[in-house]
């Protein structure tokens, strides 16, 4: 190793050579240069009473400490149909995790913990998924085959998820292009993780088994904004049926990203579409940087036979002041120095903002070898955790040359073999390119290793379920019930002159049908209704999250105003009251606002009197101020009784006549 190596400078240099710019400064040219490619897997919970394969209630959640029983399982890789172990399977087996499931009687039965075979699929869920598949222009299958998709992380107690394809090959329209869809499947949701420490992972089983659909797109998106747009469209489409769940965790997406020469990497469980641009931007550059690192590493002599060398460290011989190392020593854990021949510069090579190749190794040590972080230090940290003397000693016992890099790891003895294998495996992958992985997203837009990307060979027919035929007549019946397409709704809003900044809110809350109903039935100005919901309602509900307030009330409100011949603009004043007290009668709300029914003549006749009371102020001589003051006085009585624009017109005329 080279004590004098400036790793920070090297990090910056490699960041620069990758051409990394922040999201805001990037444009299509940036993405074309690195060959940005991305697609989506959008998950959406369906609004059903029961779970997909048993009769437990759907949508009831328990706190982590609320449980009646615990069950322990270990997951073993199985022999696949083609006789090979799946790559992920082997990794998960290496981690030797003890999985604990917490069960609450009201939310889980013996099906969830795999002690009872599945009941027939929930018909409600099946119908909703077909409706959404039809809206997504997918080719609907003739027969639904329940398939087992293996998950060895324990997130499902059976070790597999029951899932089935509803349709293949569809498309969704974006503003400027069409995104093709690969498929839509219906599946059971997984457990929620409570904790994952060392060799124990704890899950709760309340969400497990809830019906979910997954819409998968082709990697047709060529920049981060497009990925978000596609994701929003799919989510709006799902919500347009009004038959899906909303709220935290009800919609989640996995984003697949690659760069030119890269590998498909799946960023899992992104809960907000607004995070997508940053995540995909950084991931594409991570891959691009790793490809540059590969170029460097392939210059190493005989890299095909490259191996790590490991040396057990006796902490007694060192002056460790780094807390985790002291703790490891106290716990009598093993400390090992690993020499990476000719790896100088690799560990501090840029991968993501404030992250380097060393993080790739550390992340895997946590997941595969179950070593909690911090789990390693290395010769190219930005801040060295060891004294120079200690590094020199380590360099000496590992017989390091200046071009070598060193990693020091610590942990329980029995985990060290896997840890060393993990380090060697990840380093060797760097000669090959980018490993296929699923990665977990962090709020800063970076990602960490989660699992090895599983292949298609983890799919098995479910021997517990019979195929379900979908007759033409059934599909035809459902296709008559599906709502208007989201793209048509977009166009309609535009045509109505409703401002675009309201669309996301309107579609994400599925308020389009409400607006359409108000406009069609009550003949109220669409632009007013659109902004009333997209601006006013959004604003008020943003401040006061009253779940008892149901948006459908807005229809009744306008109907009430129309029936009583009250001008609809009064709704603006009534809305905050209604949100605060959803059970209050409309009349009472009006009374609270001291609203009196007056006819236009009467209101206008008071204008000269009000005008007379205006006391001109030296500072405010301009007539605009006078008009505003008069309007302020008259607004309360006028609002609801007549159009304020008419009042203002009158005031203007009155003043200019003087």
């Amino acid at each position: 190793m080279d004590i004098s190596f400036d790793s920070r400078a090297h990090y910056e240099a490699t960041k620069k050579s990758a051409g990394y710019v922040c999201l805001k400064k990037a444009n299509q040219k940036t993405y074309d240069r690195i060959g940005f490619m991305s697609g989506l897997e959008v998950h959406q919970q369906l609004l059903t009473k029961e779970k997909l394969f048993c009769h437990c209630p759907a949508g009831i959640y328990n706190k982590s400490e609320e449980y009646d029983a615990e069950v322990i399982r270990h997951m073993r890789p199985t022999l696949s149909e083609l006789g090979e172990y799946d790559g992920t399977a082997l990794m998960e087996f290496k981690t030797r995790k003890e999985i604990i499931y917490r069960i609450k009687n009201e939310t889980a039965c013996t099906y969830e913990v795999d002690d009872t075979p599945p009941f027939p699929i929930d018909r409600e869920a099946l119908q909703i998924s077909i409706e959404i598949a039809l809206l997504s222009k997918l080719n609907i299958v003739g027969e639904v085959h329940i398939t087992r998709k293996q998950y060895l992380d324990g997130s499902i107690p059976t070790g597999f998820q029951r899932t089935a394809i509803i349709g293949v090959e569809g498309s969704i329209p974006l503003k400027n292009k069409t995104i093709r869809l690969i498929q839509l499947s219906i599946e059971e949701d997984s457990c929620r993780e409570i904790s994952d420490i060392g060799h124990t992972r704890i899950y709760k089983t309340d969400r497990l088994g809830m019906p979910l659909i997954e819409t998968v797109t082709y990697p047709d998106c060529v920049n981060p904004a497009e990925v978000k747009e596609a994701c929003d469209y799919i989510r709006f489409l799902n919500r347009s049926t009004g038959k899906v769940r909303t709220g935290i965790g009800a919609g989640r997406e996995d984003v697949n990203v690659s760069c030119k020469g890269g590998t498909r990497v799946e960023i899992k469980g992104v809960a907000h579409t607004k995070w997508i641009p940053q995540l995909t931007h950084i991931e594409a550059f991570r891959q691009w940087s790793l490809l540059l690192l590969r170029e460097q590493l392939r210059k190493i002599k005989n890299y095909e036979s490259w191996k790590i060398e490991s040396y057990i460290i006796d902490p007694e011989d060192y002056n460790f002041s780094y807390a985790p190392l002291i703790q490891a020593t106290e716990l009598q854990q093993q400390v090992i120095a690993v020499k990476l021949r000719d790896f100088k510069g690799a560990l501090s090579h840029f991968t993501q903002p404030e992250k380097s190749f060393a993080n790739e190794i550390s992340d895997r040590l946590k997941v595969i070898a179950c070593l909690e972080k911090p789990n390693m230090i290395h010769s190219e940290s930005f801040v060295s955790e060891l004294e120079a003397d200690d590094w020199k000693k380590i360099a000496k016992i590992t017989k390091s040359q200046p071009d070598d890099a060193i990693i020091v790891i610590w942990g329980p003895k029995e985990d060290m073999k896997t840890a060393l294998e993990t380090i060697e495996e990840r380093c060797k992958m760097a000669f090959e390119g980018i490993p296929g992985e699923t990665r977990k997203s962090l709020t800063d837009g970076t990602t960490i290793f989660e699992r090895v990307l599983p292949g298609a060979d983890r799919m098995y027919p479910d021997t517990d379920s019979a195929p379900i035929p979908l007759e033409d007549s059934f599909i035809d019946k459902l296709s008559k019930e599906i709502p208007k397409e989201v793209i048509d709704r977009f166009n309609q809003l535009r045509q109505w002159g409703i401002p675009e900044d309201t669309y996301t809110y309107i579609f994400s809350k599925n308020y389009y049908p409400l607006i359409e109903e108000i406009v069609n039935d009550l003949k109220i100005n669409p632009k007013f209704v659109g902004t009333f919901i997209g601006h006013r309602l959004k604003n008020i509900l943003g401040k006061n999250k009253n779940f008892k307030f149901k948006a459908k009330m807005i229809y009744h409100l306008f109907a009430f105003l129309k029936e009583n011949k009250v001008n609809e603009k009064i709704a603006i004043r009534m809305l905050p009251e209604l949100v605060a007290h959803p059970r209050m009668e409309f009349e009472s709300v009006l009374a609270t606002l001291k609203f009196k029914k007056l006819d236009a003549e009467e209101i206008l006749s008071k204008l000269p009197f009000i005008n007379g009371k205006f006391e001109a102020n030296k500072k405010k001589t301009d007539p605009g101020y006078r008009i505003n003051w008069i309007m302020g006085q008259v607004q309360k009585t006028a609002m609801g009784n007549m159009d304020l624009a008419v009042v203002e017109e009158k005031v203007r005329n009155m003043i200019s006549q003087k």
Partner: protein
Amino acid sequence: MNEDFFQGYKGDALATLMKFNARVWGQADIETTRGKFVGTILPRSENDDDQHIVMKIPTGYNVGIDIKTVNSITETGYKKANYKIPEKQFPVTPGLPHVKLLGTGGTIASRLDYRTGAVIPAFSPGELYGAVPELADICNLDTEKLFAVFSENMGPKQYIALAKAIGKEIENGIDGIVIGHGTDTLQHTGAALTFMCQNLPVPVVLVGSQRSSDRPSSDAALNLMHAMKAAGQSDIAEVMVCMFGPTSDEYGLLHKGTRVRKMHSSYRSTFRTIGDTPLAMISRKEITPIKKTYNKRRNDRNVKILPYFSDEVTMLYYYPGMKPDIIDSMVDNGYKGIIFVGTGLGHVNRELYPAIERAHAKGVHMFMTLQTIWGFVHMFVYDTGRDMMAKGIVPLGNMLPEVAWIKLSWVLGQTNDAEEVKRMMLTPVNDEITPREPYNGYLVLQGGVPEVESFIRKVHK
């Protein structure tokens, strides 16, 4: 040309495939009125209808295509899947016990078959080692497939063949025997082998799995490890059933072949010892005896194999209002023995008495067991019980109904003498009737009791 290109397809679906010159394992583009589907045509399960073609699409999922919607099928390639279980040489480790695994057709290690959706067992030592490599740390393994029948088809012929095979293995010096078996009739085989293989010098362990090993959460691998350990390393020289204790992957229980019963249709921890405690707990680390007394492992080879079985024994599960013609027809059909499964302490209604008398007069051997499963037959308590005994029905204590049926079949395979039959039935071979029931032999702790609820919360199920 005897290759089956249309595995499982019949009727209209078969005709459609033939019409378009498509075959199973062919990669195909199928144009339908619902759009185009691309993938590999898969075999179809024989029990499914003839209106659909099954395809594996590139993402690995299977879908069915309705043949009524098919416009055309174009085969673009052909690639037959090759089922193979990775087989590795099972290592021989000096110092480890030698265990023989006898196969009956139950699935312990297995893989899935596309066509029937059925499970194909892995069985040779090499295949098992490929699937459960941990076995090599427990024992040296040899295997023999005696027959391949489903659990429900196990019967007298198989019991006798198994008993003889056990005798042969013991003679050859084996340290322990494991029998792979489907779980449905595990208890019947357990009882039969207890009666047929007496004075065992080594453990004989029956094992199965409630979740086939094609599932990552299968209980098969752990059960197999436990069974091999029990056979090779335990000093309990009895016929035992080795299955999960709790449903969690924690430990197994060793149950006596005569006291064990499958108590849940699908739970992993379905086997329970009835009316007593299990013999022992077993984990990968250790064997912890629960019962203090049991037959110990010996070095001699003096096993007694008694491979007898009569097929003239039946069982009568009583229900209120049962008519005597049921018993008459059993007797008319030549049955020589009837195991009654009576209500409560061992009762049937008076209406049956004449038929019981007729049966007794014809020399039919009749015994009483219980629907309650737990507890002893007590026919002295009420008049009806005393009446029945007078009419020739012998109470069998706390012998389980299935065990009683097996035992009577075994006894009638050896003698027809009424007194001898009665003597043999009432003389326990291995606790099929116990002299006393321990207080913890009946553990059905149902909800509502706060202590039980908190126990269930704390202890892994």
